[in-house]
């Protein structure tokens, strides 16, 4: 029983980090209609931000406070210079462009930092009670991640800007008729999405060792979550992420670790077959 609780808690905490990453992806997808294949690279840059923050002697998760706004600006910059050109283009265009962007960022990172393994480690060991083990670094990361995700959800639901974002996602033309500047909203959304992925990276970098290719390990999971949660559905992504975290751990524990690696694929296929609108989707 303590083993089951250990893997359940560990899966939920991992799910919180997935949720942060997938939240950004689903936001960009839902509002702008852009499938951002470079999303994993924002996570990778976040990992390196945590590393540099740790090197200066600060506690790595705090990097979110400093680097969060910087990554938001980075996202805005990407939107203004590149992404803006493909907002209304066919989806293939956004796939091609963001795929290229992904390769570009990865390779620049390899050239700048080298391909070796790194970790922004600061908290080691775990809390143990009654045979249940919870990694300290993972607990802190998971709690920060879920706080940011819930804050983001509240922002989208209740804040005026958040409502404007949802309005543009629902129908751009009508939103513009009501005086909302859709272009400004897109810029904000891409900035937010990038910052969310980077925050996920900052947290993941304190738990796992990473290389500049770490984005590839996470992006597929983010896609599975986005599909399962319903494309563009932020709350759906949150629930789907927690589910994926728990499913991965359970499959490894009860069935087979190799099959667990395929969990994300299986989720995408089953969702598209039986509930293409996702668990919370209404289409």
């Amino acid at each position, binding site marked *: 029983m303590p*083993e089951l609780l*250990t*893997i359940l808690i*560990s*899966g939920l905490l*991992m799910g919180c980090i997935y949720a942060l990453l997938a939240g950004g992806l689903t936001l960009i997808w839902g509002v702008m209609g852009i499938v951002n294949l470079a999303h994993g690279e924002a996570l990778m840059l976040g990992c390196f931000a945590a590393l540099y923050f740790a090197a200066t002697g600060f506690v790595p998760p705090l990097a979110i406070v400093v680097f969060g706004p910087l990554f938001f600006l980075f996202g805005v910059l990407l939107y203004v210079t590149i992404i803006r050109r493909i907002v209304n283009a066919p989806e293939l265009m956004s796939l091609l462009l963001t795929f290229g962007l992904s390769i570009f960022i990865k390779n620049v990172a*390899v*050239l*700048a930092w*080298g*391909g*070796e*393994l*790194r*970790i922004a*480690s600061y908290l*080691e*060991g*775990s809390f*143990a009670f009654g045979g249940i*083990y919870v*990694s*300290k*670094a*993972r607990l802190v990361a998971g709690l920060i991640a879920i706080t940011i995700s819930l804050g983001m959800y509240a922002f989208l639901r209740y804040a005026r800007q958040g409502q404007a974002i949802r309005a543009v996602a629902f129908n751009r033309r009508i939103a513009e008729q009501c005086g909302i500047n859709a272009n400004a909203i897109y810029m904000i959304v891409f900035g937010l999405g990038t910052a969310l992925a980077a925050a996920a990276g900052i947290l993941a970098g304190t738990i*796992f*060792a990473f*290389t500049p290719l770490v984005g*590839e*390990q996470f992006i597929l999971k983010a896609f599975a979550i986005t599909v399962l949660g319903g494309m563009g559905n932020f709350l759906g992504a949150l629930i789907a992420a927690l589910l994926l975290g728990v499913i*991965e*751990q*359970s499959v*490894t*524990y009860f069935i*087979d*670790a*190799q099959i*667990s*690696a*395929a969990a994300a694929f299986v989720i995408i296929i089953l969702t598209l077959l039986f509930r293409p609108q996702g668990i919370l989707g209404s289409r």
Partner: protein
Amino acid sequence: MLVDLVKKTALAATISIGFGSAAFAQSGDPIVFGGVLPLTGWGADAGEYNRRGYELWEKQVNAAGGLLDRPVEVKIYDDASDPTTTARLYERLITEDEVDVLLAPWSDDMTMPATTVAEKYGKPMVTGGATLDAIWGRGYQHVNGLLPSSYDYVGVPMRFIADMDGIKTVAILNNELTYTTGFGDAAAKNAEELGLEVVMHETYGADTTDFTALLTKARSANPDLVVGGTGGEDAVQILRQAKENDLNPKAFYFTIAPVDPEFVRLLGDSAEYVFGTTEWEPSLTALEGVDAFIAGYTEEYGEEPVEDVATSYGLAQVMAAAVESAGELDDAKISKALRTLEVPTVFGTYKVDPETGVQTGKKIYVMQIQDGERHILAPEANATATVRFPTPAWGDR
């Protein structure tokens, strides 16, 4: 490191292209040694070390007057850690570039297809970073091993550890890659022969970063020995998370990873007490020519060479010795020499079974991380430290 690598690879490619066509017209043309390595992708670290070994050998042999009175030239292609590409590039080396001598690829995954290509063209090959038993189980006549098989690679340290007090059960975790699966299977076979009970044997995906569930399962099984059939990154993640999950066997043994200096750098104190297999250490100073090798490498790269560098350097020495013994660039004669010669190299002695090509002359060393250094524990003649056992629980360190 990678920046340098990219620049140098680009430079090397330019040089090969520049001189390649002109070289044929001259007498005293270089003898071209061609190989394929993973210079990018998951095998990039080892691939880079192997490349350095080949190129240092090239430099030192040319400085010493070359081979058969001709200079040597090393030509390396990058397979991006993709076995299909490895096979294609060896075809190209043999049929288009018509290189004189083949050098080895790195890792079992790439060696399996590469040896098939070499055998098809009757081109002699000595495999380098490869230990999978299946490589020599196919009756190939032109393929020989530099490293002992996986069975011994894992078996020598397992026998050493099994001799310690209270080692009765073992948990085996291995990566799904071909070579690490080979290590996992070899560990299971050795455990059976040693009378150890295998309480868990799991294979995980190559991209796995989160080992919590597997390690929780391992903790329930409460093994005396944990064997990791790992390649590098996975060993680091497993050991870090073993600490988090309070997995406390009497000994941890990992394949490959502990010999990489990165292992200690990333894990710090957590790397202490970990057992590994090493096939070469700079402390093995009795090996022939090793001083000049270490001095040359240190001068070029500003650090001590690691096992992978010595492997490729020694491999090139073996190929050169076979060419010298054949007296000409005749593949059949070189192949025959490779089955019968005994060659002392900076990496150790090369001698294979004349029937199968399986390595029999090379020594394997049991290694343990102690105070941040790799120390040889066995055989005793080469030991630089005595064993630290049992591994204390994480909470007591």
